[in-house]
């Protein structure tokens, strides 16, 4: 089968949208308080070595996708076990983001609609694009990337008069510990989640460097997250940021330009829909590829429909309510995800280096 390839631009925009995924509306890194900007920057920097691991694996095995790499490195049994673990991780993440999306829609917009309806429609769109393949996903994100950027720029410009820099002072009021906690939080969600992108990518066009893709992606993603969190905290302050479900939505709702341009929350919602669409699709794609790799099918496309349905149902019973969901995203996720996002990739890299060397010797 022909390897589906992405261009550098497409991969980077996919990555930036993925990172901004549900992170743009949920409150992340609230522990850091007024030093949240520092936490975001630190976690972005922390993410760089992790994505370098993926890039290194890509350049070691340029003709394989992630699941194939794992199987090549660890052999059939153990490799498949790792694949299974990652498939679960991608599936679970997809369900989580889907649930975020559902909660968002019914909390801010359509209170009377049953959550299942918009979620199902949304998941069907994801199903469609995953069936079309990663190339279409890449082109799609490349196209919508500019809208995301425009939205970020417009909100920044409109928010300028509302900013209150006092929310960031004094610097390091509570010492460095909360900042580190916030850093760990932001690192785990969203930056280190890019592992799912690694699972979903199948290859890049010739002459494009995986290092550049991952690094630029992380840098631009950091920038987007940084702008959004700083803006939001500067508008509504730390306390509201920590304790609201969707702080960005509340912040933008406060904007009012000359009584005419007001109630702009919808553009936050649009940004969120676009980016979480990319995120759910990527997770779905990674899951389907994982399932196909474990069961040794060449084409993943036929598994998409059942897995989408499974994901919808899972997302539905994963949490009882939005409180539990937020608690999960902030307190449980960083610990739960650590082995998947940091330990396993390093193990895979060590195995990969070793394997590549022994292959070279032969």
């Amino acid at each position, binding site marked *: 089968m022909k390897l589906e390839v992405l261009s550098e*631009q497409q991969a980077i925009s996919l990555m930036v949208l993925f990172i901004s995924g549900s992170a743009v509306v949920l409150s992340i890194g609230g522990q850091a308080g007024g030093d949240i900007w520092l936490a975001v920057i630190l976690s972005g920097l922390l993410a760089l070595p992790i994505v370098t691991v993926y890039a290194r694996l890509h350049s070691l095995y340029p003709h394989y996708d992630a699941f194939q790499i794992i199987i090549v490195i660890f052999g059939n049994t153990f490799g498949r076990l790792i694949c299974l673990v990652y498939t679960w991780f991608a599936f679970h993440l997809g369900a989580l983001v889907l649930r975020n999306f559902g909660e968002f*829609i019914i909390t801010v*917009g*359509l209170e009377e*609609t049953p959550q299942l*309806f*918009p979620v199902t*429609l*949304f998941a069907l*769109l994801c199903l*469609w*694009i995953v069936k*079309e393949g990663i190339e*279409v996903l890449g*082109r*799609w994100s*490349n*196209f*919508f990337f*500019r809208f995301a950027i425009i939205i970020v720029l417009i909100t920044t410009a409109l928010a300028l008069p509302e900013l209150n820099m006092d929310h960031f002072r004094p610097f390091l009021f509570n010492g460095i510990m909360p900042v580190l906690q916030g850093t760990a939080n932001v690192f785990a969600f969203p930056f280190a989640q890019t592992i799912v992108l690694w699972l979903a990518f199948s290859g890049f066009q010739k002459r494009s460097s995986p290092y550049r893709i991952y690094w630029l992606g992380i840098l631009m993603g950091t920038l987007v997250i940084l702008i959004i969190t700083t803006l939001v905290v500067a508008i509504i302050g730390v306390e509201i940021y920590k304790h609201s479900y969707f702080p960005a939505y509340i912040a933008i709702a406060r904007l009012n330009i000359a*009584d*005419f341009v*007001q*109630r702009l929350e*919808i553009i936050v*919602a*649009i940004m969120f*829909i*676009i980016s979480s*669409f990319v995120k759910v699709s990527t997770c779905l794609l990674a899951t389907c590829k994982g399932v196909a790799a474990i069961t040794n099918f060449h084409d993943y496309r036929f598994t998409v429909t059942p897995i989408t349905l499974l994901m919808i149902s899972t997302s539905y019973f994963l949490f009882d309510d939005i409180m539990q969901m937020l608690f999960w995203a902030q307190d449980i996720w960083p610990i739960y995800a650590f082995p998947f996002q940091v330990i396993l990739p390093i193990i895979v890299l060590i195995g990969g280096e070793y394997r590549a060397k022994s292959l070279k010797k032969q």
Partner: protein
Amino acid sequence: MKLSKSIEKNLEIFQQKIFHDDDVIRYRRFTLGNTQIKCGIIFIDSMIDKDYLGENVISPLTRCKSESIHLREIYPSIENIIAVESLRISKGLEQMIEGILYGDALLLIDGTDLGMILSVKGWEYRSISEPTSESVVRGSREGFTESIIINISLLRRKIQDSRLKFKMQELGRRTKTKIAICYIEDLVSPQILQEVFERINKIDIDGILESGYIEELIKDSPLSPFKTVGHTERPDILAGKILEGRVGILCDGTPFVLTVPFIFMEGFQSNEDYYRNWALASLDRMLRYVGFFITTSTPAIYLSLITYHQEMIPTPLLLSISAAREGIPFPTIFELIVLGLVFEILREGGVRLPSPIGQALSIVGAIVLGDAAVTANFVSAPMIIVIALTGISSFVIPQFLGVVILIRLAFVLFASVLGLYGFVFAVIGLFIHLMSIRSFGIPYMTELSSYKLEDVKDTVIRAPWWWMQRRPKLITKKNRPKRKRIEGK
């Protein structure tokens, strides 16, 4: 069936077997000069130029002297007597029949089983006139006609390059329609060209009456409402497309020429963009994108704003809208769909009517349906504005006139169930579809999803000519520079 050596028998074959019961076939018998050799000419009345046939074929043959004719090699010797610019000697009966049916004359001579096909075509055709479907303010006034020969000459006059090639083919088992595939040898991408030939060779149909038949038979993603094969009636547009490395397919019997590959962005280009000041042309082009957005999205956005997100409308505006909607018995979605339908009916009705009646129709539509419906409290005035805006904007992108209606409807349906969120869902879906279709291997949204400055030059804007130095990248891979740089090499 084969011809014999006797002219009488041969003529009988044609008269009794092949063309029996056909009254427009003419058989003219005469003798060759003073040699007593019998000859016959078969042709179809009204498909040949009679004066030309008489003056250049029959008259020299009947007057020629016997010395100039060698009985052994009779055809080569009379080739010099006949003053026709193109003739060929043929043995096959099939070929002769085809020739006669295509407006050639067949000359048979006693004593041989060969025939000579003389090109004396001369039928009436429409003269070159300004195309009505694509009118321009500035630009050439020529339009293609129904005759493929004339169309080829129109194109050839625009591109006088020996590397411009025409490949003639016949399609349609019964109509035997002539088509010509034209391209510039060193600009066209070989994969695209090969794909075109493969698809055209696969066509098996009894009749091709218009290039639309071919279009549908070679189209990618046949289920998609978007067109992936372009068509034009203007030689200058075709020349422009071919110079960009595209392939043109001319079809006899229609002025509409197909161009492939056709990508989304072409729907927003107009030939006039390239003839006018680049800044104004760029402005126009952006207007078309805006028009596309307005015509597809206004109804859906209006609907979701007034049913789901009233808080987003500034209060004074909201008040006036709800005042206008007071006393309207129907829900907004119903109002929207019915009014939209009425508009489409008016448009469709107007298209095929003679222009005087068309005007009457638009008056009825505008005054009776618009004004009276509002006064009678059937529909609200803002809704009329929305529909009118939608309808007018759809005319800035004539290439997508049909598909836009479908998109609009889908948007409205999604917006009616989920408000603006539904609208965004529908937009996402639309772009998934657009991103997934291809035209002859070229992604449909090429150049629109790119950030390279070079690709923007002829998409969102129309950059000045001195700045556009390269041809579109994905269509032609080779021979990129449009013009050479003046300084250095």
